[in-house]
Every structure is written in structure tokens, then in C-alpha cells.
């Protein structure tokens, strides 16, 4: 394992940690709102990973203004594709979260609880 590479790619490490934290919440917490928060943390970790892939040292934003050509020749312009992709991803994440919260509201209305084992009537992980 290349430890210096791991320390250099610190954003990726943080992203992996966030992913594991979210997965822990999704699998262990009995409350479905907390599971949903875990799912959102996992989404955020993926956003961090993909945006970090496009980063450049001393990078400039991919917007054509004065100084853009020089930065382009020096290879210092940030990759626009991950940012466009994540913009799409954030909007989709918000939409799915909205639908999931509505489902939680209906579940609470019907069962009077948000505790997954109580709703299912059996002990789940």
C-alpha cells in the first residue's frame, strides 16, 4: 500500500470515511429518518469524491475571462465535467430525499412511529 499517495489524496480518504459513516447509519440506526440522513451523507461523500477528481493545484474556474488562456496553456483549469455531473447529482439527491421524506410522513401517519423494527413488527438489524 502506498501511504504517501494516501496522504496526498486526502479528499478521497475523507470521502471514504463519510461513505462508511453514512453506511453505518443506514445499517445500524433503527429510526428511518436517521437512515435517510445516513443515505444523504453517503451521497455527499460521492459528490466530494467526484468533484475532487477534477481538481488542479492553483486551479482556476472553467469560465472564460481574462487570464483564462494562460491558465489553459499552463494546464491549470479545473475539469468542468465532474462539476456539471455533480450539479445534476445534487438536484437528483434533493428530489429523492423529498420523496423519501414524504413516504416517512405517510409511514408516521399510519404506524405512529418511525422505528423500523416496530413498523415491521420484528427485530431487524
Amino acid at each position, binding site marked *: *500500500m502506498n501511504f504517501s*499517495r*494516501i496522504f496526498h489524496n486526502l*479528499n478521497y480518504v475523507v470521502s471514504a470515511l463519510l461513505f462508511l459513516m453514512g453506511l*453505518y447509519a443506514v445499517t445500524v440506526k433503527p429510526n428511518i429518518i436517521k437512515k435517510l440522513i445516513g443515505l444523504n451523507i453517503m451521497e455527499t461523500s460521492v459528490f466530494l469524491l467526484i468533484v475532487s477528481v477534477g481538481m488542479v493545484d492553483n486551479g482556476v474556474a472553467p469560465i472564460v475571462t481574462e487570464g483564462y488562456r494562460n491558465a489553459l496553456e499552463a494546464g491549470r*483549469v479545473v475539469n*468542468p465535467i465532474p462539476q456539471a455531473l455533480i*450539479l445534476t447529482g445534487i438536484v437528483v439527491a434533493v428530489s*429523492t430525499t423529498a420523496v423519501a*421524506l414524504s413516504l416517512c410522513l405517510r409511514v408516521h401517519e399510519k404506524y405512529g412511529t418511525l422505528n423500523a423494527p416496530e413498523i415491521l413488527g420484528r427485530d431487524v438489524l
Partner: protein
Amino acid sequence: MRRLLVVAALACLGIMLLYTIGRMPPMNSGSTPDKTHVVPRYLEHGEEEGGAPNIITSVILNYRGYDTMGEVTVIFSALCAVVALLDREKRGRSRSAADISKVKSSVIVRTVVRIAVPVIILFAVYTILHGETSPGGGFQGGAIVGASIILFTLAFGLPESTDRMPLGARIPMESSAMLAFLAMGFLGLAFGVEFLTYALPGIHGQATETIRMLMLMVVEIGIGVAGGIIFISIVFAMIREDRYELQPDIP
């Protein structure tokens, strides 16, 4: 016991992830594989091909316009799902928990919100309209509009908000992103170019740039308005409490 099992499984997964990270190309280098294929062309020709100095806007609206159209459909479908699950608020007499509560929001909160909301909306309009030339765009501006109205709703309650954003006015605006995309797409199609080309053939010279800018602007405004209003409608549908019996002694 189960929790220990989960932690052990997560630790294994974490070690695998760390191993992968150790073998990934170094960050921030400028020559990683993601920057070698299509990106140089986008960065070099994005402005003249995509029509916007902000390359990200070019990518979102032009190179990957179909993708963004699908995304706009996703948020519209999310609104449809939320409304199907929860019903819309009733005209003029929906209440939220803030209205039922005996504790009203404080004067400080109300005053600050009343002063801040117009400024936030102004900033949102700036963000939407300058999405081509600076950081920003339809989705970001729409999110800011939605956040400002949600802030207002939390401070002043649902009836005050629905008076200012009536249901009848919101319904046409919710579909404006799809309509703007389809209108601009079919406008090109009607003049004999491909769908979502943002160009009208037969017009040459300087006017081409202007027309493309205007068409991109129409799509951006459509996305901004629809995004904001859809988020507002979702929140209005979620926080209304009149499905339950009104309980006057909620603390």
C-alpha cells in the same frame, strides 16, 4: 453483537477503499486520466461551441442538454410523487405546525426575515441571469429562491406564504423548465437543425451568437423558476398539518 458485526464489515470495506485510494492517480496533478479525453476540447472550444463563457453551463445546457432535460423531468416527477403521496395544500386555509403552535416566532426573527428575503431573491435573480458568464445558473438560483420562500414560511406560517404564492400561480411555473427546454428544442427542429442545437439556420454573422445566448437564457430562466417553485411546492405539501385534526393544545 450485531453492531460489532456491522463495524467489522465496514472496517473491511474501509480497508478495501483505502487500498484503492492508495492506487489512484495523485490528486490535483492536471494530468490525471479524467482530464485527457474530451475535457481539452471542452476547455478549448467550449465557449464558441457551447455558447457560454462558463464552460460548465455549456456542458450542462449544450453538450449534455438531453441529460439536463432528463434531470428537469426528475425533479418534476419528484413533485408529482410528493403531491400524490401527501396532497396539495388547500386553497387559503392550510396550516403548518408553526400556525397551530401557541408560541409565535419572535419579533426579531420576523423582522430579520422580512428584511432578508427580498435581498436573497434579488441575489437569486442575479445567479440565474449570470449563469452563462459567472458561477451560477438555473438550478443554483432556483435553490436560492426556494430557500428564501421556505425561510419566510417558517417564520410567518403557511397561510401568509400561500397568499403570496397562490396555488394557481405555482402550477404553470412548475412545468416551465420542461416547457422551456421543449420550446427551444422544437424551435431548432422547426428550422431544420437538430434538437437542442440552440441555433436558427439562415441567420449568419453576429446575430447567431445573440440568438444562442437568448435561447440559453430562456432555458436557464425556465430551470430557475421551475426549480424554485417545485421545491417550494414540495415543502408546502410536506408541512401542512390540516390532514390531522387540529389540536389546539399542542405546546
